[in-house]
């Protein structure tokens, strides 16, 4: 009876007839009983139905089709620490200096520590950290990493204001701010510089604001002592610092309305008359004035869910072919030279192209669609006589053909079908894909130029091991990388291409696939300049140019080198081999050098990279002492040193305790959320039952006690 009542709402009208029959019920006991029962049933029905409405309301707030778990503890999705960022970028010549101000506002009523893992440009050199509390500004200094952690930790426990900045990867940093008073904010200013990319006659500046969650290969290690745990991942056998580089990723609507927005202002002083400034990622508001431009996004504050990319080009015909900059720092001369080789087309070579495409879960969403169209575009560039293969990888790698096949109709048709069916999910086991691509025998049909095109978002935590693998397995191949998505790991893409003696490009949106790939495939036809020889004038001093041995140059890419201890006089000679074996050389008058700043830091960063590279080539750990010395002397961050800043007086009273909050990063635009919160999977049933039984027993006991005296 009860069951059918619940199941069949058609029975419900009975309830109302019963209620309407109320006056008549006075006469009939039977009717009164029916009324009682139906009222109870109505109450039960209410209980049954009510939660549905409550949940349905919450459901409306979700976007359709988006992966999301309901969580009753909504408080956890609103971080207590709210983050505000401001990028002030000043571009001068080939270097961009940025002041990145992060404001950590404590919205809770408890003292808080804010922890934020964030990306910086992959070639960024961090050279300053300042902390501002109200009116007071305190300048930070560099200390060896372990010591800096101690300094910070001591200050945090002593209740002092303190901040630290640590490097995990060349493009991944953690900033910690201790003892933010409730309801107040602490500002941390990070200063860094980055080289401006100059390719194909166009300058490009990239400011990453978030990161694609990285895959951590290897088995999880036993619970790490979680003193500095700040991420969703546990350290694994292959990524020892996985827990430090895996910030929680949330959708924009999961953070406070004012949080995770950045104000961006860029001033460009190019020294050349500018034709236009554009951006594939944001709509810009630009004020052009000859060689200067002031640029900001149209929106006052942009959501930190994608890289900010700004491009500018000089008026046609005035694209620089060479440039020299000079700086004197602490009595030492620093020179930076840029030389663009002649653009010539070489003979058409027969190629063996192996396309490797990342179909891991982090590519889900727009990224996989872009990757597919990039690969299809790549297949189009194949000519008769070329051979090719396609490898996809996620948790496992799979090759379409056992060995490269000729670029003929039916093979190409099969490849196109294969590519169109690619779906993204699973892990990012890149090592397997690399060994498959680099270990594959050449197909029949004689000598070919072997090239690998690697299409990925680079969202892995074991970059270093992969670079080693590329270096040792490369043989006579060249590896080219194509970055996909709104926030690719540019460090991986650039370095993988460098170790693979190739080139890299990045696609920001579907509309850019053609443009970016046309250039890459044009460059892949042949390196423009090989056997590069750079001769600086001999002034009797040992030169330490960075990069020490520049690799082959591709079409549209300049040579950039920085040297120390050379005054701006004499001639720089650059020579090399053009395609087809012709010799090419040019010379540059150093006396024409334009003044610049930050060259010493650029050089120091380059030296640190050189030392790390040298160690990798010898299979050793890098020379920590030498790197630390360089880092401290030039005031730039390194893998072994961190910035730390401490205010001497105590801020937090001893009676107050402090919480700690890891600030999440935003999910890159266009990607599918892959991180799910665990759902709430317990009910109040046991608690209610226990409480109810307890109460009943208690009242029964009292009732019996009460009755006894009366008896």
């Amino acid at each position: 009876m009860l069951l059918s009542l619940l199941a069949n709402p058609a029975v419900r009208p009975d309830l109302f007839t019963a209620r309407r029959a109320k006056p008549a019920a006075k006469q009939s006991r039977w009717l009164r009983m029916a009324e009682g029962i139906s009222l109870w049933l109505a109450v039960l029905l209410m209980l049954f139905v009510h939660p549905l409405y409550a949940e349905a309301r919450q459901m409306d707030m979700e976007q359709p089709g988006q992966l999301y778990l309901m969580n009753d503890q909504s408080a956890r999705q609103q971080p207590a620490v709210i983050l505000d960022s401001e990028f002030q970028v000043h571009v001068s010549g080939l270097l961009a200096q940025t002041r990145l101000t992060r404001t950590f506002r404590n919205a809770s009523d408890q003292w808080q520590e804010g922890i934020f893992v964030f990306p910086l440009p992959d070639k960024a050199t961090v050279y300053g950290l300042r902390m501002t509390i109200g009116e007071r500004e305190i300048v930070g200094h560099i200390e060896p990493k372990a010591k800096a952690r101690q300094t910070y930790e001591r200050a945090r426990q002593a209740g002092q204001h303190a901040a630290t900045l640590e490097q995990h990867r060349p493009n991944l940093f953690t900033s910690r701010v201790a003892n933010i008073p409730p309801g107040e904010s602490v500002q941390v200013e990070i200063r860094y510089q980055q080289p401006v990319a100059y390719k194909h006659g166009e300058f490009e500046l990239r400011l990453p604001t978030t990161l694609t969650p990285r895959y951590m290969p290897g088995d999880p290690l036993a619970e790490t002592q979680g003193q500095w745990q700040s991420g969703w991942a546990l350290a694994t056998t292959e990524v020892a610092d996985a827990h430090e580089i895996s910030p929680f990723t949330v959708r924009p609507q999961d953070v406070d309305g004012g949080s995770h927005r950045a104000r961006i202002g860029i001033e460009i002083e190019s020294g050349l008359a500018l034709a236009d400034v554009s951006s594939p990622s944001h709509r810009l508001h630009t004020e052009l004035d000859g060689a200067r431009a002031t640029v900001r996004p149209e929106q006052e504050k942009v959501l930190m869910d994608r890289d900010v990319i700004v491009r500018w080009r000089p008026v046609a015909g005035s694209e620089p072919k060479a440039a020299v900059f000079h700086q004197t720092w602490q009595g030492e001369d620093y020179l930076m030279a840029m030389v663009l080789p002649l653009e010539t087309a070489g003979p058409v070579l027969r190629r063996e192209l192996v396309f490797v495409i990342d179909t891991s879960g982090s590519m889900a969403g727009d990224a996989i669609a872009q990757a597919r169209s990039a690969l299809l575009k790549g297949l189009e560039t194949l000519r008769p006589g070329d051979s090719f293969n396609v490898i996809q990888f996620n948790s496992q790698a799979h090759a379409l053909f056992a060995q490269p096949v000729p670029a003929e109709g039916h093979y190409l048709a099969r490849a196109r079908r294969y590519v169109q069916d690619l779906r993204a999910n699973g892990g990012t086991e890149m090592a397997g894909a690399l060994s498959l691509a680099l270990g594959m025998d050449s197909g029949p049909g004689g000598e070919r130029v072997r090239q690998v095109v690697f299409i990925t978002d680079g969202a892995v935590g074991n970059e270093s091991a992969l670079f080693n693998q590329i270096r040792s397995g490369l043989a006579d191949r060249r590896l080219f990388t194509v970055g996909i998505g709104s926030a690719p790991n540019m460090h991986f893409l650039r370095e993988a291409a460098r170790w693979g003696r190739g080139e890299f490009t990045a696609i920001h949106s579907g509309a850019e696939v053609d443009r970016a790939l046309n250039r890459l495939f044009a460059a892949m036809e042949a390196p423009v300049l090989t056997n590069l020889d750079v001769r600086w004038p001999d002034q009797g001093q040992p030169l330490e140019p960075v990069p020490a041995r520049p690799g082959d140059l591709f079409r549209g890419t300049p040579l950039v080198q920085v040297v120390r201890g050379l005054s701006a006089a004499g001639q720089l000679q650059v020579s090399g081999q053009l395609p087809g074996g012709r010799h090419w050389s040019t010379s540059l008058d150093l006396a024409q050098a334009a003044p610049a700043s930050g060259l010493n830091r650029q050089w120091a960063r380059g030296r640190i990279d050189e030392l790390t590279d040298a160690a990798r080539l010898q299979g050793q750990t890098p020379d920590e002492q030498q790197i630390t010395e360089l880092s401290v002397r030039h005031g730039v961050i390194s893998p072994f040193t961190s910035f730390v800043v401490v205010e001497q007086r105590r801020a937090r009273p001893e009676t107050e305790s402090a919480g700690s909050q890891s600030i999440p990063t935003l999910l890159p635009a266009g990607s599918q959320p892959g991180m799910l919160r665990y759902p709430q999977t317990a009910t109040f049933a046991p608690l209610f039952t226990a409480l109810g039984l307890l109460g009943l027993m208690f009242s029964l006991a009292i009732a019996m006690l009460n009755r006894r005296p009366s008896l």
Partner: protein
Amino acid sequence: MSRLLLLLFGCSATVLMFGLWIPFKALVAQELLALAWAETQARQVQARPWPWADTWPVAKLEMPELDVSMIVLDGLHGESLAFGPGKLVAGADGPVILAGHRDTHFSHLQHLAPGNPVRLQGQDQHWQDYRVTSIRVVDSRKELINTHALAAGTLLLVTCYPFNSMDARGPLRYVVEAHPVYALEQKDTVAAL
């Protein structure tokens, strides 16, 4: 005094009723769901178990070792979890995540051990066999489910932990990971082809 006592008695009885109501609802709902599931399979439509329901049966879960079977509902929100375990498929053919209340449907999970079989029947009446590979207790404040790192086809059964706790909002979760097992005959036919 007797009024106070009556009040206490009434309150306790109500609280007890609320407490008993949840498992009762879970039990009754499964019966209704069985009917809806039969209809779903017969007519290949999304049959709602009762007209005002916000969810519908999407699968049937069996744990042969424990001799338990239950109907699985769509979605991991509280509304479906009240009546049965909820199912969510992450991405196109990503991992399958089932979550259930530890005090009702998924109380059985505590008896599952690695190596035990688990079966899941989809709307197409096809039974997929899984084998439990690992069981972990995770802290939901520190860890998220990283669906990208899970292999396609993985089955995750999630419930709260510890099983006999009174705290309905505890942070710990009991996660059973199972991987699909493909019948040997299937492989043979592929090889023969």
